[in-house]
């Protein structure tokens, strides 16, 4: 009597077939729900008609098939549904930003655990359709669904990966949530569909390396390679402008950090230890002193040319006070000027700092020249001026004679005319 055995084998074939199609459909549901589309009446009407006459769709649900997803899933199943599902089939959904950051959002798993229950193929078929409905329902409530509906090429994109083997849930960060979508006891084992999703939506730099781990662990991975988008520099700049200036600035590429430190030390040595902005008061005082000394020295010089040395000492003392706020000397600044150039850093705080530094340097050199002129004029010009004045005063009679002679000449000329 071979017929009961053959019958049983037929049934098992059927269960395997159901399980295989169920797995394919789960992959379709998950992947399609992450493509950012909304299923509407219009999408459904585009689907091929399957009335009562034509063959109805599997599990009486209109889940369209995307060939690429079916192919990926079949490759993992490898013709051995029970084997593949015992090892766990994973559908990993991840997010890629335009900055090149990756984040795994959720992992859906389909697995076959030991523990079977006798039930008819029609019951299994009906319950599997309920399983698919639950997967559809749950796929709309995890954070990845909202993210995928709002995905845009210029911000981030969602991609998927289908592979076999135990998933590494650590890549979903802390406080991940687990939802059991469905569990079904069948004669070939207990089918379990689960989704574990991330709740902490911050991108960690180390997460990128971890994503790669399962790739090396198994050979069954298919990576969708068409989801990585070229970087948008416009967006980048916007984000970098929001740097906090109260935090230490980070050095750019090719910058010798040792030299930066040296420059920093030199600057800090030259900065006064007073409370912030106190140097402004000192500067004001210095200017006032200078102005006063200039006016008085002019007056004094007019009368007493010999006292120019006293004003000299005054100005030099004022000059000594001002050194407290000075930036490095010109020769030093040349040494550091190379460090203060930041190519490609237009608009960033570090470039602004560099501009400010350059302005300070130039401002200082101008003011120094100006002071030198003033000092020269007070010490030398006023002296020669007084000498000239004395000379001209001595020559006054000579001028008087000349004017008188010119006057008489003109009178004689007018008579003649």
């Amino acid at each position, binding site marked *: 009597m071979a017929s009961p055995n053959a019958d049983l084998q037929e049934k098992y074939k059927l269960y395997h077939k159901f399980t295989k199609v169920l797995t394919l459909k789960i992959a379709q549901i998950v992947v399609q729900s992450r493509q950012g589309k909304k*299923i509407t009446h219009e999408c459904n009407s585009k689907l091929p008609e399957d009335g009562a006459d034509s063959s109805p769709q599997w599990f009486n649900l*209109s889940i369209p098939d995307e060939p690429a997803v079916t192919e990926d899933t079949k490759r993992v199943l490898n013709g051995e549904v029970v084997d593949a599902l015992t090892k766990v089939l994973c559908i990993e959904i991840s997010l890629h930003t335009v900055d090149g950051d990756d984040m795994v959002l959720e992992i859906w798993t389909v697995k076959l655990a030991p523990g079977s229950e006798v039930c008819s193929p029609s019951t299994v078929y009906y319950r599997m359709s*309920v399983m698919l409905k639950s997967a559809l329902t749950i796929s709309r409530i995890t954070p990845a669904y909202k993210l995928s509906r709002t995905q845009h090429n210029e911000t981030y994109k969602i991609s998927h990966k289908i592979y076999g083997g135990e998933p590494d849930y650590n890549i979903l960060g802390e406080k991940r949530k687990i939802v059991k979508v469905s569990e079904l006891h069948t004669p070939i084992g207990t089918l379990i569909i689960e989704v574990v999703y991330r709740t902490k939506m911050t991108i960690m730099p180390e997460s990128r390396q971890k994503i790669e781990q399962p790739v090396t662990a198994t050979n069954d991975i298919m990576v969708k390679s068409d989801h990585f988008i070229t970087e948008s520099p416009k967006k980048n700049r916007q984000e970098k402008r929001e740097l906090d200036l109260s935090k230490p600035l980070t050095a750019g590429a090719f910058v010798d950090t040792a030299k930066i430190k040296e420059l920093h030390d030199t600057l800090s040595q030259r900065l006064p230890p007073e409370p912030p902005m106190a140097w402004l008061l000192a500067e004001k005082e210095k200017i006032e002193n200078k102005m006063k000394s200039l006016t008085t020295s002019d007056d004094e010089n007019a009368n007493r040319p010999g006292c120019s040395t006293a004003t000299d000492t005054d100005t030099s003392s004022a000059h000594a006070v001002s050194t407290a706020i000075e930036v490095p000397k010109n020769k030093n600044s040349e040494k550091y000027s190379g460090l203060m150039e930041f190519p490609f850093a237009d608009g960033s705080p570090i470039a602004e700092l560099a501009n400010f530094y350059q302005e300070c340097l130039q401002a200082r050199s101008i003011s120094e020249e100006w002071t030198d002129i003033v000092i020269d004029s007070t010490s030398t010009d006023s002296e020669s001026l007084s000498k000239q004045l004395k000379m001209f005063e001595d020559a006054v009679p000579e001028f008087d004679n000349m004017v008188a002679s010119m006057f008489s000449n003109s009178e004689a000329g007018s008579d003649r005319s």
Partner: protein
Amino acid sequence: MNARTIAFELSMEGRQVDEVVACIFHTVLFHRSSGKFTYNNEESYSIRTVSYVDVDCDFIDFTYVCCESDALGRNVKREISDFSELLRGADSTSAPPRGSISLEFFQKRRARWPFQPECVPWEVWTVYCELTESRNEQDMHSKHENVVEMLQDKIVFITEIINRHEYVPKMPSRSDADLIFDTSYSDIQPYLFKVHYNLSGAPPTSVGNTVRKLIRDTLSL
């Protein structure tokens, strides 16, 4: 027979009532509907495909899946709107308005003439709604998030209950199909269901209602 009863308690703003209830009811109905049956003979039948659509809510940040059937959508919407209007129009001076709405699945049992078929509920989903008012923008925002989180939990719970595969009526033969399924829709075949609601906040006594209706129907003959 005792019906399986599942109750949810949710507080929400008046304008969110329709969508919160619709999310829950449509999720249940999606699981509890099949494609149209076409009987080849008394026992054998083929089932047509169920289409579904995504529904984005306007007053909550939520999307749910729902069977694609205009007629079913309209019927459920009408019941929910009536309840929502009643609840929102309730006196809120002393206490926040409360009400409950139930989605009851039942099967009919043939009775001897002259009695009408007996309606026996086998699963009842009840949503207890309490209306809240937000004090300010921030309060509104946090309440809105709460509603979304609660709904997510409820949706997971619904799938959990349905996947336990506890009692559901057996697939009927052609002559009994109307006792189990609502065959009035052209594009879908849900299990027989009805929606009822009241405002007191007390659970609606579905079996009692059925018995009362049965007596009334009998007397009216």
